[in-house]
């Protein structure tokens, strides 16, 4: 975990180190005196070498969880991030929930009714789902549900109502991916020998599906969920901007507009850490669910004990 965080921090810091332009001139506004510029540079530690600055930044994050200060507003980035994170997390979590709870059943239904009407229809919709940019879908949803029908608020923060459109827009590609993956993985499993065996011994079709096919089909799908979280977290950037939700994504877009390196850096690293943590949980869940992986670990342990 820690090596990944350090690695990501170094990577992002290094990429943004090459950012052109002088932040000090941006901060001090029009016509600063050379002395002012020099003093500010000294104050921010911009005169130090790359390694010193990198070391300081990594140390701040790993030891103190401190992302520095915004160069433009001079506010601590960490507190902004922590204050905004719940909103981003809410969106991402709802989207994940939708992806799993809508996408998986759709995929199963499609696989079971292979080449039937339901299959074709849901795969057709899923194809659109993975081909639609989420920001455009968001605008279309606003156009339809807010501007035309006046059902839902077009942007802002408030009750749960305000989360409906952003979450649907952000989750739609994920739902589509999930349905497609579940379907293809289900189809692969349905053809395997143990399903034929189960049929041969006269098991009911629904029992075969739920007890034999589904658990095996869902294993590869779990890895997709991890990727989906990355997509959801990344997708919030543009979704929050459109719906004016003050989460981390919007903060990031603002930071980009202001060329505020510390803010951009903080947002990207923070989201990457969140992503890594969730991926770790997914991996653990995978090991917990898949008896083969579990057996592998148990085997290792036993071997170690014997040695």
């Amino acid at each position, binding site marked *: 975990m820690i090596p990944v965080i350090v690695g990501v921090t170094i990577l992002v810091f290094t990429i943004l180190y090459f950012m052109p332009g002088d932040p000090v001139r941006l901060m001090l506004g029009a016509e600063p005196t050379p002395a002012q510029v020099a003093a500010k540079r000294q104050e921010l530690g911009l005169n130090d070498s790359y390694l010193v600055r990198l070391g300081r930044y990594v140390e701040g994050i790993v030891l103190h969880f401190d992302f520095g200060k915004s160069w433009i507003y001079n506010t601590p980035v960490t507190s902004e991030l922590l204050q905004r994170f719940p909103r981003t997390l809410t969106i991402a979590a709802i989207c994940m929930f939708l992806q799993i709870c809508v996408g998986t059943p759709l995929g199963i239904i499609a696989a079971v009714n292979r080449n039937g009407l339901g299959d074709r229809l849901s795969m057709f919709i899923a194809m659109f789902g993975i081909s639609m940019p989420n920001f*455009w879908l968001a605008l279309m949803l606003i156009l339809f549900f807010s501007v035309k029908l006046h059902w839902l608020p077009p942007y802002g923060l408030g009750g749960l109502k305000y989360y409906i459109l952003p979450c649907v827009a952000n989750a739609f590609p994920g739902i589509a991916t999930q349905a497609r993956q579940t379907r293809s993985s289900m189809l692969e499993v349905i053809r395997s020998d143990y399903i034929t065996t189960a049929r041969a011994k006269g098991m009911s079709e629904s029992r075969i599906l739920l007890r034999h096919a589904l658990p095996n089909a869902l294993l590869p799908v779990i890895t997709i969920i991890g990727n989906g979280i990355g997509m959801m977290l990344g997708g919030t950037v543009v979704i929050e901007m459109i719906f004016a939700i003050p989460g981390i994504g919007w903060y990031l877009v603002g930071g980009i507009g202001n060329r505020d390196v510390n803010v951009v850096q903080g947002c990207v690293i923070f989201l990457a850490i969140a992503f890594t943590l969730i991926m770790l949980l997914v991996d653990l869940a995978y090991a917990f669910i898949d008896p083969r992986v579990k057996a592998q670990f148990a085997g290792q342990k036993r071997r170690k004990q014997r040695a």
Partner: protein
Amino acid sequence: MLNVATAEGGTPKVKRQSEFVVVARRLSQNSSAVVGFVVAALLVLMAIFAPLIAPYPYAKQDLAHTREAPSAQHIFGTDELGRDVFSRIVWGSRFSLSIGFLAVLIATAIGMLFGAMAGYFGRVVDDIIMRLMDLLQSIPGILLVITVSVVLGPGLFNTLLALSIGGIPMSCRLTRAAVLGVRHEEYLEAAVSINASTPRIILRHVIPNSFAPVLVSSTMMIGNVIMMAAMLSFIGLGVQPPAPEWGSMIAAGRSLIRTCPWMVTFPGIFIMLTVLALNMFGDGLRDALDPKLKK
């Protein structure tokens, strides 16, 4: 791919057909792949012949006819400066398609090279390359692209570069997995035994034999990259206005969505159409290359 040539009157001759022909035949039987291919080809033609198709120059302002709804003169309406939306979309296809294809080409080339090296050499090389890819992948793709794009600044070439960096890990991983599959094949041993140089073995023997999975994922990646490019210019990075990029057209129309929805709707439809066509083709390609999935 062995194919008994029944057409030649059942002669016992077993004809070895080129894989390309076999795959192309299977593709042509898949109707959605054909539709995807035709639509994508039409869009490419539209991009190539943009000056002939677009009824107006894409930058021509007509301040007497701003924000006009779609009509016979302007089938997709006009924008806030009186520019014809349809003409801008036609010209914009050049950006989206060239960014999509080139970025994926760069990403695939670099990713395959690294992936093949990781798979072929194994051990330390493998470790170093794969840990680097892990690192790149621990940042959600879009965020990585945004970060690189912030540093490189706007512009076609820089956007291309930023987007290709985001695609490297995936093609690298896939190539590595495929290479590990062929690593102990006899033809590689044969190549080593006739003293072929390592770069030659990797480029001439390893990569061509582990190309299929990468080809499929690259086709699917083009659509993704086009969407990401549009998103970049939507949030103000990437290709900048007044260039008629689809994403930046949507961004420009966003504030006018209540009064002139056509400025947002049509560029988005074209993004969707392009990506949809490429994905349909990619799906078909996957089925054609891996026939055991489709039965």
